[in-house]
C-alpha cells in the first residue's frame, strides 16, 4: 500500500502571542493563520485541498467559509481533547487510503488563554463529573496526579523524580525561538514550584496559551512531486482505555503495549531505531507512562531512565525537542506532530537532532495513540 505523507506544517507564533497578554484572539483566526502557513509550506494551491478536518473549533462550516474551502470531498470536526490530534491524523490517513480524498488539511485553533480556559471546576463537566466534584475532584491534572501518587508509592520513587522532564523540556524550549517559556529551570526551581494537584507541581503542568496548528497530508506519490524532503507516516495505531476517569488503573500500560506492538511491527522498527520522540505531556508523568508502555524503559523504572541527559537533545532518546506542552506551547499534541516533521526535514534550527530519520509521536491518554514518521529522500 502506498504511504501517506505530511507535505505542509504551520504554527502561529506561540511565544510572541503569550507575551502580548491583553490581546483577545479568535480560535478560528489562529487556525486560519496556521493553515495559511501550512499551505505556503506545502507549496500547493488551496484548491488542491479536497479534505478538511478541524479540531477544537465548534464549527467546521465557519472554518471552511473563512478559508474558502467550500466543497471538500471529506469533512469532519474533532472535539477539543488533545488525544484527538492523533485520531484526526489517523482519519486523514484512512480517508486518503480509502480514496475518499487526496489532499487533506487538518486545522486546529486554541484560544485557551484568551477564553480563560481552566480545565476544571463546575463548568468542566462530563456526565459523571458531579459525582467526583462532590469531593472537589476535577481537572485532568488531578486525575493524572492520582496515577502518579500511586506510581510513587508502588515503585518507591523519590520526590523530585519528575524534575528532569520539566527541566529537559525547558532546556529544549530555550533553543526554540517560537516557544512560550524559554528561561531554563533548575531542580531547585522545580521543587520550589507550588503544588497544583499534589504530588504534581506547577512545572509538571502544561501551559495555557493561544495558538493554531495546521497539517496538510497527501499521498507519498504526490508528495514526491513537490521537490521537498518527504516525511511519511509509516505506521499509526491507537487503543482506548475508556472509563469515567482519566485515571488509568495500569497507567495505560496495557493499551500502550498494544499500540507499541502494532506501530513497531507495521513500521518494521524497534525502539532502538527511534531518533527523536514527541511524547504527549499534558502533565509530566505521562512521559514516564509512555516510556514504560512503549518499551523504552522498564516498568517502574522510567524515572531513573530519564536522568543524566538520556532524553536531552544529544542523548539516547531526545524527547520533546521543541519544549513540549510544558514549555513550547499547549497545542494538545498538534504542535508535537509539527515538531516531528521539522526534525525529520532538518528544519529545527538550533534544536535539531542531527541525522534524525525516524520520529515517533506518542500520546498516552484515554485514547493511547502513536505514529512512526520517517524521512524518505
Amino acid at each position, binding site marked *: 500500500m502506498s504511504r501517506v505523507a505530511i507535505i505542509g506544517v504551520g504554527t502561529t507564533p506561540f511565544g510572541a502571542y503569550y507575551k502580548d497578554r491583553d490581546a483577545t484572539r479568535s480560535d478560528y483566526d489562529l487556525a486560519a493563520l496556521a493553515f495559511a502557513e501550512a499551505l505556503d509550506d506545502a507549496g500547493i494551491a488551496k484548491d488542491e485541498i479536497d479534505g478538511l478536518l478541524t479540531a477544537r473549533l465548534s464549527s467546521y462550516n465557519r472554518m471552511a467559509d473563512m478559508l474558502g474551502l467550500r466543497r471538500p470531498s471529506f469533512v469532519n470536526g474533532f472535539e477539543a481533547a488533545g488525544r484527538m490530534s492523533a485520531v484526526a491524523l489517523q482519519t486523514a490517513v484512512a480517508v486518503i487510503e480509502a480514496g475518499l480524498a487526496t489532499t487533506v488539511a487538518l486545522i486546529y485553533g486554541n484560544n485557551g488563554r484568551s477564553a480563560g480556559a*481552566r480545565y*476544571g*471546576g*463546575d463548568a468542566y463537566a462530563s456526565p*459523571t463529573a*458531579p*459525582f*467526583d*466534584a*462532590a*469531593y*472537589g*475532584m*476535577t*481537572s485532568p491534572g*488531578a486525575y493524572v*496526579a*492520582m*496515577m502518579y*501518587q*500511586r506510581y510513587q*508509592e*508502588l515503585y518507591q520513587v523519590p520526590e523530585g523524580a519528575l524534575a528532569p522532564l520539566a527541566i529537559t523540556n525547558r532546556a529544549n524550549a530555550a533553543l526554540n525561538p517560537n516557544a512560550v517559556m524559554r528561561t531554563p529551570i533548575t531542580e531547585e526551581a522545580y521543587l520550589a514550584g*507550588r*503544588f*497544583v*494537584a*499534589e*504530588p504534581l507541581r506547577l512545572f509538571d503542568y502544561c501551559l495555557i496559551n493561544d495558538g493554531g496548528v495546521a497539517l496538510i497530508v497527501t499521498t507519498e506519490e504526490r508528495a514526491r512531486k513537490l521537490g521537498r524532503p518527504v516525511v511519511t507516516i509509516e505506521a499509526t495505531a491507537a487503543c482506548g482505555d475508556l*472509563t*469515567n*476517569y482519566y*485515571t488509568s*488503573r495500569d497507567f495505560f500500560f496495557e493499551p500502550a503495549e498494544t499500540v507499541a506492538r502494532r506501530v513497531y511491527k507495521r513500521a518494521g522498527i524497534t525502539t532502538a531505531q527511534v531518533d527523536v520522540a514527541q511524547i504527549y505531556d499534558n502533565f509530566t508523568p505521562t512521559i514516564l507512562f509512555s516510556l514504560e508502555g512503549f518499551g523504552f524503559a522498564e516498568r517502574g523504572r522510567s524515572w531513573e531512565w530519564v536522568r543524566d541527559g538520556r532524553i536531552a537533545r544529544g542523548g539516547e532518546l531526545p524527547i520533546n525537542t521543541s519544549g513540549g506542552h510544558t514549555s513550547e506551547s499547549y497545542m494538545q499534541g498538534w504542535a508535537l506532530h509539527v515538531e516531528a516533521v521539522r526534525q525529520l526535514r532538518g528544519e529545527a534550527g538550533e534544536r535539531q537532532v542531527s541525522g534524525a530519520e525516524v520520529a515517533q509521536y506518542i500520546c498516552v491518554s484515554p485514547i493511547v495513540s502513536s505514529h512512526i514518521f520517517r524521512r524518505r529522500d
Partner: protein
Amino acid sequence: MTIVDDAAYWQRCAAGEFALQRCASCRTWRYPPSPLCPNCLGREFAWELPSGRGTVWSWIRMHQRYFPADAFDLPYEVAFVELDEGPFMIAGFAAGTAAPPPIGTRVAVVFQSNKRGDQQLPVFRSIEVNQ
C-alpha cells in the same frame, strides 16, 4: 426503558444509606449510576447495599482553587477507592484522618456532611488494626 435519576443515589446518601445499582440479570455492581449494565447491557437493576468496604488505590491533595471558596477549604484530599464489589470511586477520607493512608489500605464507608452542609457524602476511614 428505565430512566435513571442520579438523584436516586444522592437521596439514599441523604438518608445515610450507601447503595449502588446492581444488575438484576448478571449481578454486576456499577457506579456512578447508569441506565444499563456495562457487562450484559441489562436494564433491570436494584439499589442494593454493598459491603461498604474497599481499598485505597490512590489519593491527591488539591491546592488549586477550582470550586467556590464556600465549598472546599484548600488544600483538601481526594481518594480513589476500589470497592470490594468492583467499581472504583472518587471519594474523600473521613474527617480526622491524620494523613492519607498508603495505597492498599483497607477502608470502610462512613457518612459526613460536605462543607456547605447541604449534602451527605460517603467517605472512607481506615479499618486497619494498626491505624
